[in-house]
C-alpha cells in the first residue's frame, strides 16, 4: 500500500503536466469548466482540441500498442485523467470512440474493422455516437425494436434511438439492432456500425431541462451500412453491447473525481460569500460531501489496483473488460453528484433560482443541479446498477421474468 508515484509514474505525470501546460492555451478557455459541449458554436474548437490530443498520442492511451495505442498501465491512465482534470481541460468529445467503441473493437472486432476504424479514432478525424436506448427500450435494452435486415451486401436499418449524445456531430454510430425478431430477446441482436451522413439518418436534438441539447433522437429510415459492419456474430451482439457498457461504467469516471472536488470547493466559496459557511447544518453537509468525494478517489485507486495487480483480470497494455464491480462506482459518483447539486441549491437559496444573461444560460451549479438528474439515469439507471450489484457481485437470485 503506497500512494506515492513510482519514479516511472512520476516521470509520466511530469510528461502529462508539461504537455497540458504548453498546449492548453487560452484559445481553449471557452471549453473549460465543463462548458462548450452544450453549445454548437464551440464544436469546431472542441474538435481542434481533440485532434491536438490525437496528434500528441494522448488518445488511445490504454489501447494496445499494436493498434496504435500507448499500452499505458492502469496507473498511467489514472495519472493522465487526474492531471487532465486538474488542468481543467475540455470535455472529451471523442469519448464514445476512444472509451467505448475502440475497446469494444479491440476485444470483438475483425482485423478489417480494427484497421478501418481505430486509426481515425486515434486522430479524432472520425467521431462516434452510441445507438442504444429507444423510446421503448431504456433499462430493458434487450427489447430494442430498431430492425436490421440484410439486403444483399447491405444492412437496411429502420427504427428510432434516443439519448444519443453528440449524434448531431458524429460521423458514425454503433447501433444495437434487432436482426432476428423470431429469436429470444437477447439472441436476436446485432451490433452494427452505421455511417451518420446518409439520407436514411435524421437527427433531432432533444431539449433537456437544462435548456441545452447534448442528447438527440436519431431516426433510421432505410438507413444502410455494408454487411461486414457487424461487430461480433450476427445475432450475437448482446454480449458485445454489454462489453461496451462495462467500459462506460468502468474507467470513464476516473478523472471525474477531481472535477467534482473542484466543484465542491466552488460551492464552499459560495457558502462563505453568502455567510452560511458557519451554519452547523451547512457545515455537516459540506463535510459529508467532502468525505464522499475523497472516498470516491480512494475507491477509484482501489479499483485500479485491483484491475492492474497480480492475478487481476486486467493486464497492463491490454484493455480489460471491467467487471460488474464497476456498477458500484457508477452508482456512487452519480448519487454523490446529484446530492451536491441539491446541496448547492439549498446553499444558494433564492439566489440559486435566478440567473443572469440571455436565453436560458444557467451557471455551473444550476447546471449541476439539473444535469445530475440525467447522470443517475444514463449508462444504466441507479436501479439497474443495484440489480447488477445484487445479482452479479453479491450473487442474489434474479427476479423471475
Amino acid at each position: 500500500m503506497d500512494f506515492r508515484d513510482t519514479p516511472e509514474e512520476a516521470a509520466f505525470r511530469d510528461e502529462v503536466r508539461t504537455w497540458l501546460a504548453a498546449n492548453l492555451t487560452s484559445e481553449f478557455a471557452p471549453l473549460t469548466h465543463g462548458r462548450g459541449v452544450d453549445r454548437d458554436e464551440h464544436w469546431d474548437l472542441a474538435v481542434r482540441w481533440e485532434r491536438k490530443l490525437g496528434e500528441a498520442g494522448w488518445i488511445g492511451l490504454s489501447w494496445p500498442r499494436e493498434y496504435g495505442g500507448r499500452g499505458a498501465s492502469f496507473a498511467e491512465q489514472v495519472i493522465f485523467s487526474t492531471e487532465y482534470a486538474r488542468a481543467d481541460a475540455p470535455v472529451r468529445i471523442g469519448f464514445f470512440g476512444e472509451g467505448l467503441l475502440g475497446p469494444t473493437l479491440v476485444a470483438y472486432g475483425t482485423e478489417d474493422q480494427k484497421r478501418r476504424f481505430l486509426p481515425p479514432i486515434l486522430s479524432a478525424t472520425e467521431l462516434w455516437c452510441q445507438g442504444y436506448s429507444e423510446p421503448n427500450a431504456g433499462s430493458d435494452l434487450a427489447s430494442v425494436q430498431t430492425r436490421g435486415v440484410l439486403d444483399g451486401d447491405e444492412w437496411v436499418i429502420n427504427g428510432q434511438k434516443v439519448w444519443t449524445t453528440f449524434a448531431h456531430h458524429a460521423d458514425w454510430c454503433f447501433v444495437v439492432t434487432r436482426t432476428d425478431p423470431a429469436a429470444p430477446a437477447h439472441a436476436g441482436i446485432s451490433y452494427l456500425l452505421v455511417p451518420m451522413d446518409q439520407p436514411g439518418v435524421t437527427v433531432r436534438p432533444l431539449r433537456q431541462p437544462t435548456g441545452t441539447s447534448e442528447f438527440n433522437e436519431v431516426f433510421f429510415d432505410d438507413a444502410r451500412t455494408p454487411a461486414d459492419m457487424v461487430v461480433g456474430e450476427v445475432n450475437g451482439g448482446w454480449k458485445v453491447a454489454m462489453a461496451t457498457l462495462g467500459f462506460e461504467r468502468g474507467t470513464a469516471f476516473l478523472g471525474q473525481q477531481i472535477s467534482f472536488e473542484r466543484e465542491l470547493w466552488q460551492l464552499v466559496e459560495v457558502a462563505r460569500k453568502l455567510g452560511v459557511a458557519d451554519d452547523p447544518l451547512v457545515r455537516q453537509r459540506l463535510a459529508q460531501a467532502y468525505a464522499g468525494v475523497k472516498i470516491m478517489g480512494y475507491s477509484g485507486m482501489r479499483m485500479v489496483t485491483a484491475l492492474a495487480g497480480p492475478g487481476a483480470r486486467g493486464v497492463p497494455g491490454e484493455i480489460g473488460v471491467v467487471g460488474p464491480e464497476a456498477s458500484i462506482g457508477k452508482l456512487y459518483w452519480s448519487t454523490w453528484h446529484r446530492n451536491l447539486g441539491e446541496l448547492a441549491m439549498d446553499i444558494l437559496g433564492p439566489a440559486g433560482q435566478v440567473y443572469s444573461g440571455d436565453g436560458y444560460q444557467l451557471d455551473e451549479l444550476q447546471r449541476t443541479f439539473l444535469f445530475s438528474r440525467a447522470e443517475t439515469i444514463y449508462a444504466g439507471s441507479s436501479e439497474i446498477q443495484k440489480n447488477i450489484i445484487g445479482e452479479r457481485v453479491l450473487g442474489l437470485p434474479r427476479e423471475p421474468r
Partner: protein
Amino acid sequence: MNFAFSEEQEELRRSVRRFLEGKSPIPEVRRLMETTDGYDEAVWAQMGKELGLQSLHVPEAYGGQGYSFVELVVVLEEMGRALLCAPYYASVCLAANAIMNAGTEEEKQALLPGIASGDTIATLAFTEPNGRWDASGITMEAVPGPDGSGGYTLSGTKMFVLDGHTAGLVVVAARRGGSEGTDGISFFAVDGGAEGLTRTPLPTMDQTRKQAKLEFSGVSAKLLGPDPENTEGTGWAALSKTLDQAAVCLCAEMVGGAQRVLDMSVEYAKVRIQFGRPIGSFQAIKHKCADMLLEVESAKSAAYYAGWAAAEDNDELPVVASLAKAYCSDAYFHAAAENIQIHGGIGFTWEHDAHLYFKRAKSSEILLGDATYHRELLAQRIGI
C-alpha cells in the same frame, strides 16, 4: 500507486481469522460478554505470546515488532468481524499509542514492553461524566506533589473508560489547574490498583466492549513526558494524535463488522423463501444489499487509506481520521440495522447474532465522537 495489501499482510489476515474462528467463535463471544471482565485470559496470553498481536505496531526498541498501522488495520478488521471480546483496542490502540506519542524514551522503555507482550493490560482514561470527546471535556486537574519530586495527585471521575476495571495500567488525561481548552493537558500513568482509585464496571448495552467508571481520590500519578509547566500545549497535541490514530483503528474494526453483517444478510436473502421465492430476488431486498455493499466498500476505502496515512504519520492524518470515522460510523450502523430488517422476526431475537453487531455498531459509532461530531471536526480541519 498501489492500493492493496501485500501478500504478507493478507497472510497475517488469514492467520488472525483462523485464530479467531478457533478461539472467538460467537458462542465464546456470548459467554465472555456475560462476564464482568469480558475477556479470556488464556486467549489474551496466546494472542500476545504466540501471535504477537499486541506487539504488532510497537517499535522493536520497546519490545514490539515494528510493523505499521496498515498491519494493525488488518488485525482489527478481523477482530471487528469476530466481535472479539478482549481489551485489545484499549491496550494497543489507545494506551500504547498515547505512551508512544507522549512518553519520554525512558517511559516508553518502561511501559511499552509489558503492553507489547500482553502481560500488561492498559487503557486510556480520557472521557468524563460530561461525555465530551474534545479537550473541553477534560476537567480533571493534576496537582503537583509538595516535594517537587515530579509526582502528581489526581482527583475526580473518569467515565466510559474502556476495560478500565481490568487494566493494570491506566493512562489518564488531566490538566494543569486553572488551564482551559487545549492548553495545559498532559498524560499521567496510574497503577490500576493504586490507592484512592475506585473502579466500577459499567453495565453496557454493547456487552462485547466493557467500560468502567474510575473515581480518583488523591491518587498518585506519574507524569508522562515533559512537565506541563515547561511545555504548555504539547499534551493536547499528543492526545489529539492518539485520538486520530484510535479513530483509524476503530474504523478498521467497524469495516470488519460491517462486512460480516453484509455477508449475513446476503446469505440469508439467498435461502429465506417467502411468496415462493428467495427474498433476495425481490428488488426491495436486493437493492438494500447493493446499498450496503456500496457503503461497506466505501468504508473500506476510507479506513484503509486512513490506515496508510497513520502508518506514514503524515499531515493528512487528522483529516482522513475524521473523514473515515464519520463515514465508517454511518456505514456500519446502517448495515447492522438493515441486517436486522432483512432477517425480519428471527433477526429480532436474543439468539440471533444480528443484535450483537447492531449494538457493537452503535457503541463504536459513539466511541470517540459520532459521525456528526467528526463531520464538524472534518469541516474545521479542511478549513471550512
